[in-house]
């Protein structure tokens, strides 16, 4: 139902342009590098991921630690240089872009980090942190405009503008996360990659930040790529969900549909492991045995088969492709229907 802005004349492109379109993105890190030797092995942190985000949309990205979700999030905003693939942002491929060209584009996409303690400079006041973003992109013509903009931003994220001259250590974790959000908002981005923005926060503060992110989205039409391991949080905030395992997308689709009727056995297991507060819930829990395998030597066939409760013979040899099994619903499993 969302109204997409068409940026190109309809003759050039009939379909509405996605804000972000990632095609076959790969990020490989060298492993066991010898001083002069050639690199023989690679950690395939992200191994051929494609995704798209429409303007104003929230896409959730879930998976266990080590699945590559953070690397993917960082590669999308070019904090990590991808090994291969295309990152088309507002119609331009930014995958190979760098220097001044990339810096100019950075205004359009920002990032919020997990650790509200580590992601703020302890020696800069709040005004300094937010003002830095304004200065880099030359968004404040003079000192009074700069001050006004900082005040507005602080109000937008629910902080008191009179606290602008305070340092990060004077704030609680939730307030610090709000400062991080204000810093990202300062340059009026169209896309914010949120990397586990609430997992370091107290339960009572988590909900405040999630509501804030949703309010800001409604007001400013920002799209989010929301990276998290908490499925309940991701289901709540996202319109679509991508489930990642060992560097690949194994399931994708509408958030509610994925959480209610998971098609991939991994999604199923992830969902069943989410703890429930209600002691009367009669949910069947699927216990996955073992850990996520090493991304240096992924298992042959389906990467999930060693932990899969329904694996068959062909799962051990044939790699399942991510295929559309219903409208807007994708799964990488031989058995998914």
């Amino acid at each position, binding site marked *: 139902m969302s109204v997409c802005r068409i940026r190109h004349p309809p003759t050039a492109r009939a379909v509405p342009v996605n804000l972000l379109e990632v095609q076959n993105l790969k990020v490989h890190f060298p492993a066991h590098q010898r001083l002069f030797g050639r690199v023989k092995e690679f950690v395939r942190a992200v191994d051929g991921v494609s995704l798209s985000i429409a303007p104003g949309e929230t896409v959730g990205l879930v998976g266990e630690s080590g699945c590559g979700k953070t690397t993917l999030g960082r590669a999308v905003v070019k904090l990590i240089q991808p090994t291969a693939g295309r990152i088309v942002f507002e119609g331009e491929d930014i995958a190979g872009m760098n220097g001044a060209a990339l810096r100019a584009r950075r205004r359009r996409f920002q990032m919020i980090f997990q650790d509200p303690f580590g992601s703020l400079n302890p020696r800069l006041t709040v005004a300094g942190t937010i003002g830095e973003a304004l200065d880099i992109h030359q968004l404040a013509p003079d000192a009074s405009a700069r001050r006004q903009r900082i005040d507005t931003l602080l109000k937008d994220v629910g902080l008191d503008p009179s606290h602008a001259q305070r340092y990060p250590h004077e704030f609680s974790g939730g307030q610090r996360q709000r400062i991080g959000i204000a810093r990202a908002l300062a340059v009026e981005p169209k896309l914010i990659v949120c990397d586990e923005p609430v997992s370091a926060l107290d339960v009572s503060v988590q909900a405040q930040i999630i509501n804030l992110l949703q309010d800001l989205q409604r007001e400013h039409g920002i799209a989010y790529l929301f990276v998290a391991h908490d499925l309940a949080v991701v289901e709540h905030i996202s319109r679509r969900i991508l489930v990642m395992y060992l560097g690949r997308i194994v399931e994708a689709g509408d958030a509610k549909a994925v959480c209610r009727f998971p098609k991939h056995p991994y999604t199923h297991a992830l969902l069943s492991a989410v703890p429930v507060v209600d002691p009367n819930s009669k949910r069947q829990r699927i216990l*996955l045995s073992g850990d996520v395998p090493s991304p240096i030597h992924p298992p042959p066939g389906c990467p999930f088969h060693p932990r899969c409760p329904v694996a068959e013979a062909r799962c051990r040899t044939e790699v399942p492709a991510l295929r559309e099994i219903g409208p807007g619903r994708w799964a990488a499993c031989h058995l998914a229907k």
Partner: protein
Amino acid sequence: MPLLEIKNLQLQFGSGPNAARAVDGVSLSLDAGKTLALVGESGSGKSVTALSIARLVPSPPAHYAGGEILLEGRDVLRMSARELRRIRGGVVSYVFQEPGVSLNPVFRIGAQIKESLKLHRPEVATDAEVLRLLKVVGIPAPESRLRSYPHEMSGGMQQRVMIAVALASQPKLLVADEPTTALDVTIQAQIIELLRDLRTQLGMAILLITHNLGIVGDLADDLAVMYAGQIVERGRSREVLQRPLHPYTQALIRSVPELGADVERLTTIPGSVPLPGAFPTGCRFHPRCPMVQPQCSVQAPELALQAGRQVRCPFAESATLQPPALSL
């Protein structure tokens, strides 16, 4: 006689007017073989309460201003250093949040488990016993793991090793302080399952410290909710989770997003957790409470018996009748 009984524990950091009372009048009891969950957000005093059971909070700076911690009937706060060494591990063992930090990085895991055996059960300090313990905590191919270093294992496996170290001394009480917070949900489910099995097999009591209400229902018989150094609600965990009485417990349960729940907006608790030393007057929750009354800011409520459980709020019963619309 309960295995553990904490009576009116008072623990403060610093002294004089600036003293921060991190634990203020906490009373708990735990019977052998049972599980008690102590739930609270950061700064609620749950971890220092748990650490106090084996006097693991360094004092100074901590100062026990009053109360008793009776472990098997004997007051830990009055024990000599020698006695403390005996109960640490011997009666009560700990499993902490970060297994990677708790294990010694320069010793093989077999040696670390054996160290605990040498201290508490020297007669069985053998590889065979270490292997048996590794099997108990569900480590696959334990023979090949004996000579591994902690960094060669995943977080979930490290936590299993930590549990094996804790079990080696055959404690009567296992204190699990956020044992799954650093782990993925799938691994969290494995560790919870393991703790549950161990409790049945070994008849050990578990004190579970957590901020995650979801794992409480799975594991605990009783539940105590802490806020700002005090217990605000205490009762059977099923009953508390199903029908929370204290406004804080209610708000805490409602602010957890549930899978499959169709809510537009999450309910929130405005403000943030107060720090020890800066607790509000009167009821410590009143600045954030959705059903605050004029007297709440003046009069500190006592923990009182209501509907078969202890609640620190005089309006708790009426509060449940009108579920408030919390919103920020």
